[in-house]
């Protein structure tokens, strides 16, 4: 039990009649990277805000770093670090001034204050940029500074809300290396993302849609679960075929990828036949049709389509 960083039980949040988060449950351990996926408006941000202690839940329970989100939000705030989606440090302060300011707010010990600032600047490769205004930084550097800022007070849990949105791939990779480094020190990381290849880097992922967690587990396990149900059809014209196949029995969802359609089906064999037949009757040219293994993107698309 001591190893549990975040424990969520039936957490719910309503805004009037609208249920933004609906009885979600999961457990995150220290040293683990937890990926939180879902379309915009699915309830990701609402969940983060509740876990950070800035939004009271309407129901259910959650402990963060051992503190109750309903009653101990002040202790939670001291125990967590947060990197927001949008750069929210001060553009008109230098990197070091930003860190100093937040160091004071978090009550960093005076004797080790400077030492810790040096440490996080080194970790994020920002030592030579320390006296530059944050406003002059590139998107990636801003995210690194935000990360440096979030770990300044040695939080036990780190929340990152789409930390790599709008950052180039090279920077994204180095940022993830940093996240692994941080996880290695025993910090639990809660990461929301749109990028599937990032989700695959997580120890555990959860899909949330319309306020509910649809699937939760290790990335590889999730992929295996549905790979047997996926059919790739290369055909022309694509959109006409898409509309047509949608109504076939046994087809749960269709996603277009370039010149192919990915069909999420209940049974590979019968669907393969049904698709071929339907194509012939409606003058659709089928180049190839074959079962494939799912990428996380497929998992994500499939889950979003299912009610």
């Amino acid at each position, binding site marked *: 039990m001591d190893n549990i960083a975040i424990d969520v039980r039936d957490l719910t949040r309503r805004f009037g009649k609208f249920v933004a988060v609906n009885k979600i449950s999961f457990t995150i351990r220290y040293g683990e990277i937890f990926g939180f996926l879902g379309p915009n408006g699915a309830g990701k941000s609402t969940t983060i805000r509740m876990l*950070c*202690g*800035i939004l009271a839940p309407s129901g259910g329970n959650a402990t963060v770093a051992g503190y109750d989100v309903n009653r101990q939000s*002040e202790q939670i*705030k*001291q125990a*967590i670090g*947060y990197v*927001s989606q*949008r*750069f*929210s*440090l*001060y*553009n*008109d*302060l230098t990197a070091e*001034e930003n860190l100093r*300011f*937040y160091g*004071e*707010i*978090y*009550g960093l010990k005076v004797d080790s204050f400077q030492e810790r600032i040096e440490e996080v600047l080194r970790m994020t490769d920002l030592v030579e940029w320390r006296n530059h*205004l944050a406003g002059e930084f590139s998107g990636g550097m801003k995210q690194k500074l935000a990360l440096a*800022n979030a770990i300044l007070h040695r939080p036990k849990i780190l*929340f990152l809300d789409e930390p790599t949105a709008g950052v180039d791939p090279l920077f994204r990779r180095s940022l993830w290396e940093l996240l692994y480094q941080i996880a290695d020190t025993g910090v639990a990381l809660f990461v929301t993302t749109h990028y599937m290849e990032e989700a695959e880097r997580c120890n555990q992922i959860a899909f949330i849609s319309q306020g509910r967690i649809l699937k939760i587990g290790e990335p590889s396990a999730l992929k295996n679960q549905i790979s047997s149900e996926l059919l790739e059809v290369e055909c022309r014209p694509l959109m006409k075929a898409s509309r047509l196949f949608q109504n076939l029995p046994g087809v749960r969802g269709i996603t277009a990828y370039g010149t192919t359609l990915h069909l999420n089906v209940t049974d590979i064999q019968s669907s393969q036949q049904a698709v071929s037949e339907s194509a012939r009757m409606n003058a659709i040219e089928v180049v190839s049709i074959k079962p494939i293994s799912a990428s996380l993107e497929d998992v994500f698309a499939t889950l979003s389509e299912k009610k």
Partner: protein
Amino acid sequence: MRNIKAIAIKEFLHIIRDRRTLMLIIMMPFLQLMIYGYAINMDVKHLATVVYDEDQTYLSRRLINSFEQSAYFDIAEKVKTPETLHRALDRGTAKAGLLIPSDFTKDLLAGRQADLQMLIDGTDSNPANAALSTSQAIVTAFMRKEGLLSAQVAPIDFRPRLWYNPDLKSSFFMVPGLVGLLLQFIVPMITATAIVREKERGNIEQLLVTPIKSYELMLGKLIPYLCVGLIIALSIIAVAWALFQVPIRGNPLTLLTLTFLFLTVCLGFGLLASTVADNPQQASQFIMFLAAPSILLSGFIFPRETMPHFVYYLGYLIPLTYYVQIARGIILKGLGFIDLLDQVVPLTVMAAVILWVSIIRFHKRLS
């Protein structure tokens, strides 16, 4: 305390880094002081005057001379016909015209009443009034000097005297009120901008997940702008003293204390604006909307006593009204704290109410 200090220091950094705010703080008081002190000059001085002297005698020339020497009237031109004089007034090239008829000297020497006509451009009533009375004084002084006043003792020795501002310098009248006017615009503006900008740029998102308390955040933000407000007030008074020789007759400490009181109203006003606005533009519109009427209604430019009843009482709802009276009272009349209780009490009540409302709203908006 550590948190409040951290925020205050950060806020000072923002002020120093932001050229626009800095310009507003430094340039605006100076500029306004120049405008109200020099340009909007309601003193009657060097009024361009045209003279039509039909009399052309020793005495008429002496009269013109005394107008010229008064510094209130400048003889711009001597014309040959009354029509030329009228035209000059029509065109506005002259603000006053002096007509001396041909039998001016003859009548005076014969002991008859002599005619003398003075025409004054009355489109701007304030200087016109002053010019009218000044010209009368000049003529009276001229007659006394020339021994033309009757030897009989006048039944009443009427000597009106002006107190506080004997030269009727409008800069004296303007400057104390100007301190209040500028504070009322600049302080809420920079306070609201500082708070709203943090919201607009998303900085608040990061602050909310820190252990900082909302009162710490608020105090940390208000303290720097309180200091800025005091600096503005002091610099206006100092510049006014140096440029216009506006004396400070009362206790500077009382002035400082009551300026401080007025500043809390301004800060509360800024805080309130920040809770209704989503961006700095909205905040400044809100401030302009509420602050602009106070220029006219507070008695800063026009005496409130001459206003219609309704407008007069409306003035009581405006904090600037009280501060204008306080500042004039201390700076020009040398009044003390006790003399100003009628202004201090309502201002204190206003400060308490506006701070209370805005703090509650600020707290609500944050959570």
